[in-house]
């Protein structure tokens, strides 16, 4: 049986690079709660494609610069 794949992200790192943007501020920008941003950063929740694009757009980077697939 194949190992369970997971999606990793650099949201926390990018947020800190962007003038220490808070989780609440990022949540407001992409339309989710602070708790959802926390869950994304801790890899407990994979955001929808739309939210993933919004996050990448906020940081001005491509989707693959934020999210990566790890076997």
């Amino acid at each position: 049986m194949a190992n369970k794949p997971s999606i990793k992200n650099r949201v926390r790192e990018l947020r800190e690079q962007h003038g220490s943007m808070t989780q609440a501020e990022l949540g407001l920008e992409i339309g989710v709660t602070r708790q959802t941003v926390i869950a994304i950063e801790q890899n407990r929740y994979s955001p929808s494609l739309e939210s993933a694009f919004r996050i990448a757009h906020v940081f001005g980077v491509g989707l693959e610069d934020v999210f990566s697939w790890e076997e």
Partner: protein
Amino acid sequence: MPFREKSAWVMSLALLSAGIFYFIAVAVIWNESGQLAHPMLPLVIVYTICLTIIAALGHAIIAALAPKEANAPADERELKIIYSAGHYSSHIFAVGTLLSLGWYLFSGDGDLLFYTVFASFMAGQIMEYAIQIFLYRTSI
């Protein structure tokens, strides 16, 4: 703690309190009369009023503490949690109802059927909010 988790706590507390009140009242009547009482509308009305008052008061308090969060629509993760909890709790209600109907086939006791289906409904509702709290705190 997000507003919706607080809301789930309020609803769990309201449902648990009203449910305990209801079944204690039924047990007291059962104890006094020596037999299972017919389902009584006034008792169901009191249960509903208790539930409504606790839920409304609880929500008024948590909404006053975080009005902005209270007015915001549920986000994608919260919706996923709400749908998942509803899905699992519906199984609890369904199993409880099926067991109640099965029991009725053997006992033929309609009063008992009412109480067991009502209890299944309450258990399903309480579990829905309990699962929401669990999901808010752990996975998803």
